[in-house]
């Protein structure tokens, strides 16, 4: 049976860094959506909205971070198992609401936090099932 590569502190921190980067990208996306001044999408304002979004420099900062993050994930995959990387990657679902509170002044309720926690458990289960299958296949 193939031995699963352990998660070193270094890799762990790199994944958390990748999570923070992606969360930052999402904040930039949301900020540029707010900057369009359009707070409700209708059929009539859809095209002006998309045009405004893509002409916003803030959005392009977000897209640039996203692409960099993609390359970073490539490097992470080369050093660890997907089944280990994925649950740590799901920390993004906790970082994004924290960032939303600080940078977007959103009100994150207790129900929302509870839901997020349940989602993380689900992602953990899903990622563990993949590792099980993989180990079995390679045995």
């Amino acid at each position, binding site marked *: 049976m193939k031995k699963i590569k352990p998660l070193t502190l270094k890799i762990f921190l790199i994944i958390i860094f990748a999570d923070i980067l992606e969360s930052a990208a999402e904040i930039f996306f*949301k900020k540029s959506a707010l900057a369009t001044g359009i707070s409700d999408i209708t059929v009539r304002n859809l095209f002006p909205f998309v045009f405004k979004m893509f002409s916003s420099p803030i959005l392009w900062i977000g897209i640039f971070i996203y692409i960099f993050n993609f390359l970073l994930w490539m490097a992470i995959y080369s050093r660890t198992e997907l089944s280990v990387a994925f649950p740590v990657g799901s920390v993004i679902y906790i970082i994004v609401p924290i960032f939303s509170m600080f940078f977007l002044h*959103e009100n994150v309720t207790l129900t929302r936090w509870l*839901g997020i926690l349940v989602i993380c458990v*689900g992602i953990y289960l899903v990622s563990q099932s993949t590792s099980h299958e993989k180990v079995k296949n390679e045995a």
Partner: protein
Amino acid sequence: MKPKYFLLLIIHEIFGTAEQVILKKGINGLEKPKFKSFKDCLIFVRNILMAPLIWLGLLFILAAWIFWFTVLAGVDLSVAMPVDSLQYVAVMISSYLFLHERMNWKKIGGVMFIIAGVILVASS
């Protein structure tokens, strides 16, 4: 979360999921990457940029992004992001249907948890 935005999010997820399946099909068609060094990663990136299926996938990414942005226009990020995890569910079902990946109880259990969490977040 208004039904309209839920619908837009679902369209985003459909494009996002199709994108994942197309990318996976495209990548499956390439020679298996080694990922032993950063150079391997760069070779892999070069290989994927030469595959037509990957470019189709990139078009789907663009469409998925546009719908994601419309969701962000009307929904808090701290709601939209967790609800977006429904994509795990959609990707799993499509992997089963289109890529013939196996289903097991852990996956199904995980999916149940994700759906329960999404319902909590979306109703908050």
